[in-house]
């Protein structure tokens, strides 16, 4: 079990009086893909936001790649620098891309890594080499999502699918241990979802550890090693795609999946 890279234990999150997460526990091995499915309001997005530190959970424990991100039993008190280092162990692809509009595709991918490189002690001496290295890596990432020729374009000049692919490259640039996707195709024209799913499949083939919140059932089935079904803030059922999609144990999962077959 030493290959566990993401471990979530007894996670609770409340917004005012509403308890959105009511004790979520799961783990994920390195190189695996986990899909989280469930109807709207079941807490899927909140779960991702807690793991990626956009929200602070109320109770429980989160560990990513050996880093304790959150622990209500012994609160984490990190320096700012340490917090940022841990932050970069996770990457997040947003539903609405959130690209930086004033930067080109390439600059979007490079920005965070460039700013981080400035803190390196050898940055001043090797400025040119470091910058060239960062650009090379960013171009490589854009190539891997099929957008090498759009490196110099601004987000407003790209289609939704292209923007989302840039945002995937941007999330990958700081080399996160686990990459999270929050409904990455929901804001897209159905014709454009295919190009995103293709990129995710390609990442899965490259053994990138990923957690994907999605409504694309056939895709989830095809790409995942593990599927989690969430309902009302709890994990109602989890298992392999075959278990969950072919032989769901609970009537809720069956009812949920039936809706998608129409």
């Amino acid at each position, binding site marked *: 079990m030493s290959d566990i890279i993401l471990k979530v234990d007894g996670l609770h999150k409340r917004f005012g009086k509403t308890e959105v997460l009511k004790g979520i526990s799961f783990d994920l091995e390195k190189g695996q893909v986990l899909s989280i499915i469930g109807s709207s309001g079941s807490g899927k997005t909140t779960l991702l936001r807690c793991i990626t530190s*956009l929200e602070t959970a109320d109770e429980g424990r989160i560990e990513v790649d050996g880093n304790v991100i959150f622990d209500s039993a012994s609160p984490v008190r990190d320096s700012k620098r340490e917090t*940022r280092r841990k*932050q970069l162990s996770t990457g997040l692809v947003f539903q*609405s891309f*959130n690209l930086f509009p004033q930067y080109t595709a390439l600059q979007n991918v490079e*920005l*965070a890594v460039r700013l*981080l490189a400035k803190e390196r002690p050898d940055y001043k001496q090797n400025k040119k080499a470091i910058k060239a290295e960062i650009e090379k890596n960013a171009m490589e990432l854009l190539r891997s999502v099929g957008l090498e020729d759009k490196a110099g374009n601004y987000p*407003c000049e790209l289609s939704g699918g292209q923007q989302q692919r840039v945002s995937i490259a941007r999330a990958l640039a700081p080399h996160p241990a686990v990459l999270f996707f929050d409904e990455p195709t929901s804001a897209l024209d159905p014709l454009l979802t295919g190009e995103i799913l293709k990129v995710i499949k390609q990442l899965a083939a490259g053994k990138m550890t990923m957690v994907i919140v999605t409504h694309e059932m056939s895709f989830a089935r095809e790409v995942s090693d593990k599927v989690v079904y969430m309902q009302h803030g709890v994990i109602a059922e989890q298992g392999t795609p075959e278990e969950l999609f072919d032989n769901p144990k609970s009537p809720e999962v069956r009812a949920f999946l039936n809706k998608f077959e129409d």
Partner: protein
Amino acid sequence: MPVSMMPLSVFDDFANVNISLLSGFKTTLLIFFITLAASLPLGLLITMGSMSKIAPVKAVVRTFVWIIRGTPLMLQVMIIFYGPGLLFDMPMRDRLTAVLVAFIINYAAYFSEIYRGGISSIPQGQYEACKVLGMTKSQTFFRVVLLQVVKRIVPPMSNEIITLVKDTSLARVISVTELMKSAQDIVNQRAIIWPLFYIGVFYLLFSGLLTLLFNFIEKKMSYFNG
């Protein structure tokens, strides 16, 4: 009729009028540029106060902005000029200083609201994207948010700055001889009307130049949508 062929007295008149108007215009320019230079940064400071997480600071600053925006600039000029003398027996020596103080405070309050609107219009997703990419708060503001804010506030700022061109004429209420007052003096002394039309052209040209400048800035930033 070309100027050189006019009777000497008319030409003489025209030259003299121009000389007094130009000295008034110099004061107008001075008020305009000093107000702008000081109130642009001061406005940012007020924005920080009115967006502060400390409730009392926010309440005090927002009340201050409400008072400044809710009363006439002319009244503020008069209070700042006459106030120290009548209240504390420390009369203001320099009229122009009183005008500048009032204008700077007034315009900083207006600018602060424009900045605040611009900052709060940036989608939360931009901040979240920066956070998950491990960027610090200052990197987030200076590298990502600021330029988007600037782009969004150019139109309302240009409006406000063009208003400032015309508001400089309020300085005459405490007898500062800016363009408006110098024209009025001429009208009173010589019983001629044309200097009033003539300074209208000054204001028009001035605001016209500013309009061109702001159009240029807007165009410069049209390469992105945000």
